């Protein structure tokens, strides 16, 4: 397994600023650019950037390097509860969007479009809640970054938990946003 931190020449830790990462990535890319002999390295460098740029995959990569596996775990109970509400909103959205796009008349669609304020609001609320959750998890990463240096063994489980939470929250966020865009597409 390639150590992406080492490949880009950055410190192995949970929190890495965008500036640090981009600086390292750009420098590395420029040195490889136009050097056909090293073209195969470009794949790994791009993969390293992609992995480290996302906090969830970055932490999983970090834990795998340190402890041999990403230390899975289960999602917290409040995230489980949130999952319930999100699924409900997504189902309502899919139903309404489905029946709307089945309408063939432009005028019927246009009239229905006006009556979607309720759904729009639900999706906005879900997005808002998920964004808040995401920021909270990212703050948690910042805190755990500190404890990482005191004891990486102690930080291991909470970090795995945060990474998993982030993975789910990001996935739900993209699902909610996709529905919002599809709603606009009906126009």
């Amino acid at each position, binding site marked *: 397994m390639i150590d992406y931190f080492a490949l880009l020449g950055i410190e192995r830790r949970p929190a890495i600023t965008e500036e640090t990462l981009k600086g390292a990535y*750009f420098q590395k890319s420029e040195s490889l650019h136009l050097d056909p002999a090293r073209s195969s390295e470009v*794949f790994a460098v791009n993969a390293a950037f992609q992995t480290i740029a996302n906090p969830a995959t970055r932490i999983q990569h970090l834990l795998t390097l340190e402890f041999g596996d990403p230390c899975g775990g289960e999602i917290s109970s409040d995230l489980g509860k949130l999952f319930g509400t999100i699924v409900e909103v997504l189902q309502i959205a899919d139903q309404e969007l489905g029946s709307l796009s089945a309408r063939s008349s432009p005028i019927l669609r246009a*009239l229905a479009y006006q009556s979607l304020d309720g759904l729009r609001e639900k999706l906005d609320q879900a997005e808002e809640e998920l964004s808040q959750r995401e920021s909270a998890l990212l703050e948690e990463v910042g805190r755990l970054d500190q404890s990482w240096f005191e004891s990486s063994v102690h930080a291991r489980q909470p970090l795995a938990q945060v990474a998993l939470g982030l993975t789910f929250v990001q996935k739900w966020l993209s699902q909610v946003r996709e529905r919002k*865009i599809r709603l606009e597409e009906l126009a």
Partner: protein
Amino acid sequence: MADIVGIDLGTTNSLIGVMDSGFPILIADREGSRLTPSVVYLPESGDPAVGAPADRMRALVPERTLYSVKRLIGRRPGESEKEDFPFAVTSQNGRMFLDIGDRLLNPEEVSSLVLKKLKADAEVSLGRSINRAVITVPAYFNDLQRQATKRAGELAGFTVERIINEPTAAALAYGLDRLRDRSRIAVYDLGGGTFDISILELSEGIFRVLSTNGNTRLGGDDIDRELVRLLKERIIGRYPEVRPELDDRLFLARVREIAHAAKLRLSTEDIVQVEIPFLSGNRSFSYTLTRQELEAIARPIIRRTRSHCLRSLDDAKLDPRALDEVILVGGVTRMPIVRQFCAEVFQRLPNITQNPDEAVAVGATIQAGILSGEVQNVLLLDVTPLSLGIETFGGLMNVLIPRNSTIPCKAGEMFTNAVTNQTSMQIVVLQGERELAKDNWELGRFNIEFEPVLKGIARVGVQFEIDADGILHVLARDTRTGREKVVEVSSAVDVSDDAVEKMIAESLDHAFEDMSERVWTEAVLKSNELLPAVRSALTLVGDQISPEDRQKIEGLVLEVETALKSHDSHRLKKANAELDEGTQHLATLLIDRAMTEAARRKK
């Protein structure tokens, strides 16, 4: 040092450029224009005419004058909805061909003729031969469309050094004299046949694409088609007796040309006089077309770019306010309504400093300069527009490389035998964003071979690699034997003509079954929904349409009401369809109203 040229192979026009003492210069063709129409005329005997001379044949010999073939390149039969070309498009062995009567050509052959002309004219102009090129494609082109474009370049005698995305090229053109800047820009590229939106980060000479989105079948051609429809309607309004003659190919080609010219003029003028002399016999047709009328037609088409812009911003994790500039390229962005639309979506005035026809070619030339070493301190990091995956059990798509991954990139997947002594397994490669495999583009299939061993013992690793051109390569490696092999992903020839014909025949069978009471009931249901909807739409936004339009809609409503009493299902279906068509504009106004209200509520 051998030159590398930069080529914008456009739907409507193509351009070629070369670096000259550190500056990108576009080269005029033999006719003296930097814009060479992407049109090929194939006479019954003799050499093909390409560019402006071919363009002049469009209205004279429409069935042998091929244009907008970019809409067909890399596509499969059945995949594209019916395109309204005046020349014949057919399929054979699962591939698309243009049929000019005495022979068949595939789209890449036609494109290669355009590229050959660009090459020959540029060689004359430069006084030396050129054989290396960078060619642009719409960012949202899939693997097959990219491969076909590359093949067109090779057929024309080029070594294709790089396939580069059009909006990325435009960003290079914009950013070349701003190499010290750090900024985030969006490039909104609406051309004759395709739409792309890309968001980039410029950082001291590094051009990093954050996200890209688009539609490879949305462009100015669609506006032309609607405009032709409007003109036909107006002609029939004046001379009902010429209706049968209006479907004549020659005549339509002429109207299309006139409509296109009128559209261009309406970008700067408010009113144009559309003249069609010698319409039929000694009738002639003259019509005053206003910009407002054109915009009413164009608005729903342009609005279709909105969701792509939103997706692109979402993927880049950016709010429109975080952008520093929105650059417009592509001829259609000359239309004032497109500029207004961009201002609304991105909440800022768009940047119109780039020449909308030339920016992409200039960017391709800069990329050629980067590859030849002539342009230094510039680095381009582009992405793959579509997710790449394979079909898994249950017909789902399993994503291996997500969209907007920086290219080149690769992903691996390990496969094993499900039963003892299984010798092979078929893998279906997909590109797209939908959850169900069947809703995505199938790039092709291939077989992986297993050694005959106990179940679960065989190990074949498959590596999917997307190169810097955005083109896929597949490599299979048996980890037990260490044998490695490049896998040919067979594309195109997977749907035989027989299968397609069978599908068509089956759907026709169903059509005949349906000729029954059910059709009538459905049509009545539709009318009953449609009539009150049109009435309430008229109360809501009726004041925004002209008295003529209102009268026309009322006539269509009356026809639906009369047809309801007739028990003639054919007549009712037709009346419903005409009312749908006639209220399109009303629907647009309703949505405008809803959007304005939503925006007001937000504030």
